[in-house]
């Protein structure tokens, strides 16, 4: 069996792990990932926008995609998926989203629901 040489110190490892943790902290602090007040709920299928609501609306909408349906509910400034016929139900377990940048993904249906702070279009 090959005998792999182990470095005698943890110096390289300490530098590497420190850099990675620092990178993680910086990522968490990046403005792009900050939870700003959301304004719109944008629905995308295959990367194409297929619908948009204001986060203040009261909506119960059945979104039909080529693969199945997801029932989107918007109430009290939050949006969530109430029911869906996908297999894993990850979109339902995701719970509600309200801040800009938060996302619900239903991968089997190629569906992404995002809260944006974006402009009126």
């Amino acid at each position, binding site marked *: *069996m090959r005998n792999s*040489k182990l*470095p005698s110190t943890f110096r390289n490892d300490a530098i590497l*792990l420190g850099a*990675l943790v620092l990178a993680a902290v910086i990522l968490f602090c990046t403005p792009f990932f900050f939870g700003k007040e959301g304004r719109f709920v944008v629905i*995308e299928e295959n990367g194409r926008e297929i619908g948009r609501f204001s986060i203040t609306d009261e909506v119960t909408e059945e979104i039909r995609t080529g693969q199945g349906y997801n029932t989107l509910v918007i109430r009290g400034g939050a949006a969530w998926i109430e029911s869906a016929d996908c297999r894993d139900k990850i979109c339902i377990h995701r719970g509600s989203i309200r801040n800009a940048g938060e996302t619900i993904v239903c991968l089997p249906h190629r569906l992404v629901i995002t809260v944006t702070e974006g402009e009126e279009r």
Partner: protein
Amino acid sequence: MSGKRLAYLASFLGLAMILSYVESLIPFFGLVPGMKAGLANLVTVFLLYRFRTAEAFLVSLVRVALSALLFGTLFSFLFSVTGFLLSFFGMLLMKKSERFRSISVSVIGGVLHNMAQIALAVILLGSGAIAYYIPVLFAAGILSGAIVGLIAAFLIRKIPIRL
């Protein structure tokens, strides 16, 4: 390959399958199908240090394919295999450099695994929206890689298999 060697590799495959099964019972983040705590990577890291590269690769690849077949979906297979390939080659490079200990190798594996999965999700969905999860997945990769790495380092030290 000797019979003894084959028997060892088969038992490690079995062990990796059990770990895969255990982690399929733990809903970790549930963000992306196929996203796991990375327990099975323990076997991959161990094999990288105690067996040949090709053997570590094959056992791990078969584990990924079989556990997707048994506990997952086509989607989870795509995600697992993408994450596995990038993390395996990242770990291999780290190890071959001989500048890092197994904990760093494992942490790099965990981070690359998660970053590969998020990249695949962005490509599949054609939407950058899930990039929102990068910080969480990045940190989760470090954490799970560190835990796996600590256990692996212990096993590598305690089990000096000679074949």
